[in-house]
């Protein structure tokens, strides 16, 4: 491990640029002659569109064009496809309704784009939008997740006959029912996993331009790797050759999963640019971003666990309704089970699992992957069941978990995951030690003296990281001595520039200042580019860089041998230098030689330029895991929950850069606590309107909501990838919510409150206390 190599706490290369205002975001792109796009969105959650009249709007000053679904359909623009596939036990496939980029015949959520206005200014576009006459016929709307599958629920899609787009089950329900009947003890819980609005700091934005000379259209938009998005637009929606479209993502101000989607607005920006002679620019404000980004979570669950007399799990049953919104976004319908939810069972040995998911439509913004994407949900469920199990047996939360932890690896879960490694009991013990569990009672007494109720709570989580099993990276030595990495991944806050430089330093001895990360341009990204999500960039991109580096060394050995007149098989490479006999030559010299055909061995072509298309084998995802321990104080007079102590121990395998992993863990924790404490997405259940579509109404976690967080690692390198890494990006979002809820419930122990749904807003907690006092405990 060199000074700048793997494992070193190198400060981020990109920070000086980003923190001094020198980042370049999509909104910084201004093209000559650009005109402005404004999307008119549905004011209703559910309505029939009887007619749209754009006559007056088209005559308004500064208006260039107005498009509705009639225009795009007439032009052959296909609905946005949903790649997800799943079937019920009986073989009934997921219902996939068409999603046109502009509402067709009906609007199904408030905020759905209905018309695209192109004008000389944003204001002219907005003025014109007010002149568009739309004859809406309002229909009954439904937003409430727990009611979506009810027989009397208003229908989002008439042809489906219900709102259940898919009923997926692991096996027949009866198998586990029998176990529950004969179990020593069982526990059951109903809970809501609250919907979250992702809210990247950067709002939605896109710029597009068509060049009639080349026939190519360029789309600038933030993403998490645009190649998949632009390919889908080309091949499946616009039916144009992929090489005729180019997508460039500049600096991207937060992704969290939600910025990886093929959004209607992106389709329209590409399509309309090809109709127009001037470049187009669209930037949403925050309110528009609230309704145009996909949302996360939103599940209603009934879960139960059956135990033998020793408190060992016999079976777990879990029935979840997931609110997918009005249309299917990429993975919304499957993330509850085959997406993130596949790690159901999490850290525990679950011999029998019944897992049922009803993916249901509603008149709300579509939901899809958001930091954790199914994993926070199942971790929350399993942790709640463990806690209730401990209460049922009268044993500690720690003892309950220890009796049920998976201890031997690899472990095949009921969902088919092969958990490769981990040290669950060790990680729990380390957490208790670092978090001074032993001193809790003393701190509790101190809190009590101040009128506060203090509680302590554990959240053990297991994550499944990796996403799609392929990624491609290319490493190229340039004439000027620079080394460029052409990445299939896409850093949008993760610090890839720094970590990938560390890898090249480790494997090639290249100085970090010489490394340049090239990403986010479909013209230069490798063919096998996939992107950054699912905590995958190190385990996929990192491994591909390592292997491309190895190919560089192999080729370099031949060139070095030629230069040193040594048999290449006798050439060795160490820390940037090739050695052959008594001679040696640096990689720098070899790279320069590789640019000069006269210095290359017969038949070899320069330069040093290697791509590696990494294909992960079989079940070799990996399973970051860890334990979060929170102490919280509840103010019984107001119901306010305050975090006063937070300890996080994570096993994310080999840590490439502890500063960056700390940041990843902190970010995940902030979003996890956001879900558990403040982020409250409220729809009007009558009208389906999103009532919390601004930061005035939708709470985001703030730095002041957190104490200093003790972050430590109990690293067990993953045996399934070259680097031994496990994902780190989504850990906090999985561990923090159950730990916080358990801390709050522990604080309220004297009231006997069994459960409070997230977010634990002061009024909700206060009401639970009032109910408990009057004998109606939750």
């Amino acid at each position: 491990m060199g000074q700048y190599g793997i494992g070193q706490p190198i400060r981020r290369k990109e920070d000086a640029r980003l923190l001094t205002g020198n980042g370049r975001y999509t909104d910084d792109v201004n093209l000559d002659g650009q005109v402005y796009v404004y999307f008119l969105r549905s004011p209703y959650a559910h309505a029939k569109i009887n007619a749209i009249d754009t006559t007056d709007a088209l005559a308004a000053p500064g208006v260039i064009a107005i498009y509705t679904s009639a225009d795009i359909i007439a032009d052959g623009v296909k609905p946005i496809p949903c790649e997800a596939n799943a079937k019920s036990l009986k073989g009934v496939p997921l219902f996939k309704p068409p999603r046109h980029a502009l509402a067709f015949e009906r609007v199904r959520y408030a905020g759905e784009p209905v018309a695209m206005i192109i004008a000389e200014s944003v204001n002219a576009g907005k003025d014109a939008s007010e002149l568009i006459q739309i004859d809406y016929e309002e229909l009954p709307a439904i937003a409430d997740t727990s009611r979506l599958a009810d027989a009397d629920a208003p229908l989002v899609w008439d042809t489906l006959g219900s709102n259940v787009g898919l009923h997926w089950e692991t096996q027949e329900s009866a198998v586990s029912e029998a176990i529950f009947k004969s179990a020593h003890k069982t526990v059951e819980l109903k809970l809501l996993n609250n919907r979250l609005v992702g809210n990247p700091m950067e709002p939605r934005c896109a710029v597009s331009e068509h060049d009639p000379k080349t026939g190519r259209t360029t789309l600038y938009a933030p993403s998490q790797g645009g190649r998949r998005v632009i390919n889908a637009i080309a091949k499946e929606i616009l039916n144009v050759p992929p090489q005729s479209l180019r997508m460039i993502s500049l600096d991207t101000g937060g992704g969290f999963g939600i910025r990886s989607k093929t959004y209607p607005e992106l389709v329209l920006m590409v399509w309309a640019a090809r109709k127009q002679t001037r470049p187009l620019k669209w930037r949403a404000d925050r309110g528009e971003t609230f309704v145009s980004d996909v949302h996360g979570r939103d599940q209603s669950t009934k879960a139960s666990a059956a135990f033998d007399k020793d408190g060992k799990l016999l079976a777990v049953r879990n029935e979840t309704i997931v609110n997918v919104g009005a249309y299917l976004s990429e993975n919304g319908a499957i993330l509850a089970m085959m997406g993130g939810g596949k790690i159901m069972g999490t850290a525990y040995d679950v011999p029998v699992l019944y897992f049922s998911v009803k993916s249901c439509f509603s008149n709300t913004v579509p939901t899809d992957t958001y930091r954790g994407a199914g994993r926070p949900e199942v971790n929350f469920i399993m942790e709640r069941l463990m806690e209730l199990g401990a209460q049922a047996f009268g044993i500690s939360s720690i003892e309950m978990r220890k009796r049920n932890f998976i201890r031997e690896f690899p472990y095949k879960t009921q969902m088919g995951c092969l958990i490769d490694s981990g040290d669950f009991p060790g990680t729990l013990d380390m957490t208790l030690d670092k978090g001074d569990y032993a001193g809790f009672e003393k701190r509790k007494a101190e809190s009590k003296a101040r009128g506060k109720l203090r509680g302590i709570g554990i959240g053990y989580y297991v994550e499944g990281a990796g996403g799609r099993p392929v990624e491609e990276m290319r490493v190229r030595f340039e004439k000027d001595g620079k080394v460029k990495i052409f990445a299939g991944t896409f850093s949008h806050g993760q610090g890839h520039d720094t970590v990938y430089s560390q890898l090249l330093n480790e494997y090639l001895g290249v100085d970090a200042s010489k490394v340049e990360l090239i990403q986010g341009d479909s013209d230069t990204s490798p063919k096998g580019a996939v992107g950054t999500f699912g905590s995958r960039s190190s385990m996929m991109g990192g491994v591909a860089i390592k292997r491309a580096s190895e190919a560089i060394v192999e080729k370099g050995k031949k060139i070095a041998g030629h230069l040193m007149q040594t048999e290449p098989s006798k050439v060795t490479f160490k820390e940037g230098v090739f050695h052959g006999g008594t001679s040696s030559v640096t990689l720098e010299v070899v790279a320069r030689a590789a640019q000069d055909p006269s210095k290359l061995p017969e038949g070899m072509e320069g330069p040093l330029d290697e791509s590696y298309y990494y294909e992960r084998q079989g079940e070799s995802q990996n399973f970051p895991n860890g334990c979060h321990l929170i102490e919280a104080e509840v103010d019984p007079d107001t119901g306010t929950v305050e975090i006063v102590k937070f300890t996080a121990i994570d096993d994310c395998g080999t840590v490439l850069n502890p500063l960056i992993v700390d940041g990843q863990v902190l970010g995940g924790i902030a979003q996890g606590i956001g879900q558990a404490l403040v982020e409250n997405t409220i729809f009007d259940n009558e009208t389906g309107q999103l009532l919390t579509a601004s930061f005035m109404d939708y709470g985001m976690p703030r730095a002041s909501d957190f104490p200093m967080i003790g972050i430590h690692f109990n690293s067990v390198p993953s045996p399934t990838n070259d680097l031994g890494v496990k994902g780190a990006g989504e850990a906090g979002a999985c561990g923090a919510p159950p730990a916080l809820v358990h801390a709050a419930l522990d604080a309220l122990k004297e009231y006997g409150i069994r459960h409070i749904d997230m977010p634990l807003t002061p009024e909700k907690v206060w009401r639970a206390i009032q109910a408990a006092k009057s004998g109606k405990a939750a």
Partner: protein
Amino acid sequence: MYNFEYRRAQSVAEAAKLIKEADDGKILAGGMTLIPTLKQRLAQPSDLIDIGKIAELKGISVSGKTLTIKAMTRHFDVHSSPEVKKAIPALAVLAGGIGDPSVRHRGTIGGSTANADPAADYPAGIVGLGATIETNKRKIAADDFFTGLFETALEPGELIIAVHFPIPDKAGYLKFAHLASGYATCGVMVSKTGNQVRVGVTGAGPNAFRVPEMEAALAKTFTPDAIANIKYPADELLSDMHASAEYRAHLVTVIAKRAVAAALA
């Protein structure tokens, strides 16, 4: 936003004239509510009359037992003013808890008072301290000023010039802030001058109000416990997705107690 005529007044008299001449003019003070409203196209005034450069509307002074804050004084300036900290520290606390730093450097006491947001902080201070609102036409007592949700006693064309606060013996302000906006779900200013006590509440009702029963109890014994059992009727309070009337009613007692404790601290 929609187009409007922008006019900058150099004096209060000119501002009054311009607003009178405009079809549907609006006074632009700090703009912390007005500008977002315009950006969302929720208002379409014909004219904006900017009073930000009027020198006679700025400043903080103490004269005898009165603290005077001119209308265009920013929250940050109130918060950090040595005069305010000395005369009515609770008012400095109140101003320092409004919005965030950028709001506190733009927003003004006159703008906030005239806007009469039910969850704004200043109304509690004005009512709880028994301030007098001086306008370009008259002086209005705090008790007569806030008349309803975003409604005040101000007449069309009437501008706030200054707010005069009688300096109490002691006062305390505390708010229970909403998790998202930081606005007061319930904020209480309690003040004691001689044996007179005032309890001003914001955030809980359609406009700031006093709680006479608490005032009477505190006049006898100025301790948190003196009002522990005084409940405010929920049916007079706001109920929305952020807080039910029942919860707000409960908070009136809890926060008033803490405001008394703050006054005694």
